[in-house]
């Protein structure tokens, strides 16, 4: 059962169990009160080990959090790392030359300024520049990250990007897949990368994603159909 | 320009030797050659452009305006300096502006602006605009030469209406095309570098860097006048100097200023 909470709302916590707080929740160090600090849907999971609370809220400004999948643009190259922008007008993050599969001092990655990369946030201390990586650092293996060649990027709200990536019941990708074959990479920083063999299909997907953002799930089908109709004229009823 | 320590000490030793050995072999009283053009801005009453052999260049325009001096009794000469690449409120521009406005301060002895009076009520006011296109050291000397050349070639419309117009309502009227030469002689400003016991006129940019101090001396109508100032030319060698050098400096200017004037006039 989801509940809409606003910052400062009273949230019931079972004091007898250990509590872990996620994004949007805050524990006042003095009073030990648990308070939501963002407006959104309160998510609560209770199990034997304890309870988890977080607020699912939508926003536009991305703040790196460890483990997030993100899409960034290379904006600079230094002696040992790239500077990557995850969203315009926010602090850039760094991508070490060593954070690539099979990287070594001799074997440098060959990304250029302006290239798109799919990566994971591996360190996000408040006080330090966040770092991202293009490999699975636990195994050192390739994990599907790296250069995103060609394609197009759609910018959506962070909540929408999360839905696309994590919500298996979210119908949009399945709807799109009915019309066209495409590759997609979803960055939790609100960037969605798309590519297909036909530019018109890519455009139709691109526009559908943008149009669906902020609409009711029920309208998705119509929106997708309309866009494919407009760009490719191939929608058979 | 930033010089290396070795360069500076070589220069300092050379310049403070007796007699001074300047890096381009000049005598202490010798200027670098200059080139002057005048009268090239038809929209201005007077104009000049001066180029020094190191490429320093400045352009001066003199424009006039008729003012009612019974109401507007500011100085009749207003000078403004614009140095390329410098903001108007930068320290260099402001210091040169303030010095020049003192140099061009009307004064019966040196800069006689009575020539600018048209009638009992009206006068010409002169706007002297200086544009320094490029300079490698303090351009004050060059500017004063350029102003001198511009003012000495300035022509103004010839008055045809009467002198006594206190009771007259009309503005003064001028001849359609006849012009009169203003023939105003503005002061020349000399910059001397002090190195050791030596005084060097027109220091080049590398001489600047090792000068113990600088001396600005103004000269007009055959004699040294105010303002006379010291000016620090660098941050490294600057220090106080013997008072006797001041007298020597003034004497050096007195001895050679007339040659400069004649060269400008020729």
């Amino acid at each position, binding site marked *: 059962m989801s509940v809409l909470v606003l910052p400062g709302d009273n949230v019931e916590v079972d004091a007898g169990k250990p509590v872990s707080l996620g994004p949007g929740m805050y524990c006042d160090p003095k009073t030990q009160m648990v308070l939501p600090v963002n407006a959104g849907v309160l998510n609560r999971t209770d199990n034997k080990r304890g309870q988890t609370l977080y607020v699912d809220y939508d926003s536009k400004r991305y703040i790196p959090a460890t483990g997030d999948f993100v899409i960034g643009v290379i904006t600079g190259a230094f002696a040992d790392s790239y500077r990557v922008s995850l969203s315009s007008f926010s602090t850039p993050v760094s991508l070490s030359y060593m954070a690539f599969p099979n990287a070594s001092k001799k074997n440098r990655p060959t990304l250029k300024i302006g290239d798109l990369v799919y990566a994971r946030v591996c360190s996000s201390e408040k006080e330090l520049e966040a770092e991202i990586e293009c490999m699975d650092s636990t195994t050192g293996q390739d994990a599907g990250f790296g250069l995103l060649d060609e394609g197009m990027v759609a910018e959506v709200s962070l909540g929408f990007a999360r839905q696309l990536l994590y919500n298996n019941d979210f119908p949009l990708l399945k709807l799109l897949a009915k019309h066209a074959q495409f590759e997609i990479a979803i960055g939790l920083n609100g960037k969605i990368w798309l590519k297909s063999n036909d530019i018109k299909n890519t455009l139709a997907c691109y526009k559908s994603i943008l149009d669906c953002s902020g609409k009711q799930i029920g309208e998705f089908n119509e929106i997708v159909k309309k866009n494919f109709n407009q760009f490719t004229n191939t929608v058979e009823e | 320009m930033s010089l290396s320590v070795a360069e500076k000490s070589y220069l300092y030793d050379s310049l403070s030797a007796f007699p001074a050995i300047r890096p381009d072999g000049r005598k202490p009283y010798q200027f670098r050659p200059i080139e002057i053009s005048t009268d090239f801005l038809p*929209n201005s009453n007077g104009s000049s452009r001066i180029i020094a052999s*190191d490429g320093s260049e400045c352009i001066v325009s003199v*424009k006039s305006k008729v003012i009612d001096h019974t109401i507007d009794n500011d100085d009749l000469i207003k000078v403004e300096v614009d140095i390329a690449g410098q903001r108007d409120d930068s320290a260099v521009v402001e210091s040169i502006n303030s010095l020049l406005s003192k140099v061009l301060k009307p004064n019966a002895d040196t800069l006689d602006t009575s020539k600018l009076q048209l009638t009992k009520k009206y006068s010409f006011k002169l*706007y002297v605009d200086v*544009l320094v*296109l490029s300079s490698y050291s303090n351009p004050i000397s060059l500017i004063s030469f350029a102003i001198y050349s511009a003012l000495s070639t300035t022509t103004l419309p010839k008055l045809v209406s009467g002198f006594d117009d206190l009771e007259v309502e009309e503005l003064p009227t001028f001849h359609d095309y006849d012009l009169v030469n203003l023939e105003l002689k503005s002061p020349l400003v000399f910059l001397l570098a002090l190195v050791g016991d030596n005084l060097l006129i027109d220091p080049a940019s590398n001489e600047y860097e090792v000068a113990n101090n600088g001396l600005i001396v103004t000269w007009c109508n055959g004699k040294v006048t105010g303002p006379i100032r010291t000016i620090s030319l660098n941050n490294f060698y600057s220090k106080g100097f013997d008072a006797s050098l001041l007298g020597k400096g003034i004497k050096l200017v007195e001895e050679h200023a007339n040659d400069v004037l004649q060269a400008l006039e020729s």
Partner: protein
Amino acid sequence: MSRFELYSPEGLRLDGRRWNELRRFECSINTHAHASDGSSYLEQGNNKIVTLVKGPQEPILRSQLDATKASLNITVNITKFSKMERSKSSHKNERRVLEMQTALVRTFEKNVMLHLYPRTLIDIEIHVLQQDGGILGSLINSITLALIDSGIAMYDYVSAISIGLYDTTPLLDVNTLEENAMSTVTLGVIGKSEKLSLLSVEDKIPLDRLESVLAIGIAGAHRVRELMDNELRKHAAHRVAKSSAK
């Protein structure tokens, strides 16, 4: 406004030119060899313009460093004494001047091979000593000359001219009096082509007249290009002769 007869029934303009005649166009390059890498002095009618190109050189500010190409910076200094009447205030931060600077940068950005000079700054300084109409066009011409003098690679000449429209007659290369009295069009043309890098109309002009004005303007700009080219070749021949003599 009609104190003057801008265009007489005999087909003569205020300064005695005919409709399709340029003003006196005199230019020289390499005028400030000490102070710059490339320089020009241009007199187009009574416009007198000094242009200095400095660079490609190490950028002065970090923000001017572009790893892929040179940054182009243009400063237009319109002196207070440039007009008949001395202006009281400085023109430095006027919007009109800022607009001009932007237009000039965008004109030359597409024509100079900036990609050949990564991580450098090309700084252009222009001093307008006197102005008498069609100033934007003269600025373009003077920059073209100074850039070529500096040896910086560019695709082609950019030559520019202003054309006025007097009733139905286009008047080539307008001066201040004409410019103030009628609508004018300024255009910047690439080389001998009919491609316009810059086009600026600041007053009302009938849509159906525009095409003929552009045609005259392009022809005029081509003529300006030719005049600049002549001067450059003359200068080059002189230099070549001088160096081969020694």
